[in-house]
């Protein structure tokens, strides 16, 4: 464990929004190659935690370091990709093809005004293929299904060649089969490409079957490694309350559970 790099370091982080304390004294590390699920009740602070890590909302106290750099000084945003919760709620009449949208992922602070070259487009097509979107590459973005839209935004994130992908409830409102396919793709990204993934989700089974670490957020933040010897129910109770019962059948994971 010691030889793995710390990608995100959060220490004594408290955040308040509109005068209300939303996160209290959070402490955790995300290591390179981690696949982290962020769970907790609605309004518990999952999105706030992600936005704070991304430097999008001010902190009340504490520190956040990305790749060893304080968030205030961090400027290597090409290493981090974010897919927000409301990404798929765009104007469906916006005149963009799937291919064009994904190619926008190639833009960045060091590439202002640069034309996309052949290699850039090759990467765009590779990301589309990886996310299973090659056949709809020339369709308008508004014509895609919810699941395809989500995969399109992940493809857009992938062309940036990020080291970390942060997703906020990416499968909300998508049917179970499509959700499962999406989780499979994210597992592939994590295991085959070594991309660190942090994902807010309400799907506890998916988190416990596929991910390596869970962060429970309900104002207080509790972190646990997902291993058979860890009392996950106890961790979840801290976020969801003492009356919470989590029925988890390990066979549901069909061998995905990492012991």
């Amino acid at each position, binding site marked *: 464990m010691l030889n793995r790099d710390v990608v995100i370091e959060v220490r004594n982080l408290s955040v308040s929004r509109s005068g209300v304390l939303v996160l209290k004294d959070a402490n955790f590390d995300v290591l390179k190659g981690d696949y982290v699920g962020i769970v907790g009740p609605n309004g518990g602070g999952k999105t706030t935690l992600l936005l704070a890590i991304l430097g999008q909302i001010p902190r009340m106290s504490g520190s956040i370091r990305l790749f060893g750099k304080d968030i205030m000084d961090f400027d290597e945003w090409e290493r981090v990709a974010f897919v927000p919760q409301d990404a798929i709620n765009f104007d469906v009449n916006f*005149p963009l093809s799937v291919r064009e949208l994904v190619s926008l992922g190639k833009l960045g602070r060091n590439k*202002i005004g640069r034309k996309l070259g052949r290699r850039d487009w090759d990467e765009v097509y590779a990301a589309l293929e990886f996310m299973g979107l090659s056949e709809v590459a020339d369709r308008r973005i508004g014509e895609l299904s919810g699941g395809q839209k989500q995969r399109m935004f992940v493809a857009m994130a992938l062309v940036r060649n990020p080291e970390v992908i942060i997703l906020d409830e990416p499968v909300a409102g998508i049917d179970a089969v499509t959700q499962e396919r999406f989780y499979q793709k994210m597992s592939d990204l994590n295991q085959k490409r070594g991309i660190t993934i942090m994902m807010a989700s309400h799907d506890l089974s998916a988190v416990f079957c596929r991910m390596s670490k869970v962060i429970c957020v309900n104002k207080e933040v509790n972190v646990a490694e997902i291993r058979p010897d860890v009392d996950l129910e106890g961790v979840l109770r801290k976020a969801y309350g003492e009356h919470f019962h989590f029925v988890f059948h390990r066979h549901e994971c069909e061998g995905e559970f990492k012991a």
Partner: protein
Amino acid sequence: MMELLYPSVSLMELVSYQFFQNAILGGLTAGFACAWIGLFLVLRKEAMIVDGVAHTAFGGVALGLLMGIDPFITALGISTVSVLGISHMKRKGLAESDSAIALMLAIGFSTGLIIISIAGGFSVDLFSYLFGSILTISRSDLLMILMLGISIIAFLTVLHKELLAITFDERGARMMGIPVNAISTMFNLIVAITITLSIKIIGVILVVALIVIPALTALQLRVSFAKTVASTILIGLVSVVVGIIISTFYNVATSGVIVFTMVVIYLATAALVRGRNV
């Protein structure tokens, strides 16, 4: 009854006249720049900014004519202040976009009217800025239009992907490290320049049409962004050329015919798209 201005002149002969060449070149440049800028403005839901800034620029024209300065310079100055003012009010939450535009329009146009009455009423010059005078643009006007037009087109060519990303999702663009504020400010300045150079061509009242209608027409086609940009520009160029030719032959107001041509293309496209979807 419309009467033919050049009943015995063929199109080929017309093309050899310098006033006609100036009009076509100036019109094509303004049409190209306006259409492309217009697509971004329509997608940003800021189309009416054009109307507000154009009317404010009218105050600038009146000021220039009163002071004996080139009205283009004063109009450009006032348009720039106006577009930055609207953007500032929006960003600081001082007013909604439409209220900010209405406020700027009122300030600019009322100032213009006061200046006009001080100067002793409307002159022919002032009328030409209200309704456009593409057939009377001089070589020096043309040179100015070409220079600014090419700068606008160069800006859009270089930064159009960044502008697209900002237009689609400003927060996302910011997080990707795109300098959103700097590019948005540059875009606003380009909008001010585009409006000012188009006033000479089509006039204060109708400049909004030159900017908005080609984009609205192309958006009905529901194609990719690259094809939408190409269609928008093509519609702008065709309308300008058709408008200039018809208005020259029939001696009717050029700006009116250009906009009327755009409206006809818009309606024809709407009918075709509807027919295709039924």
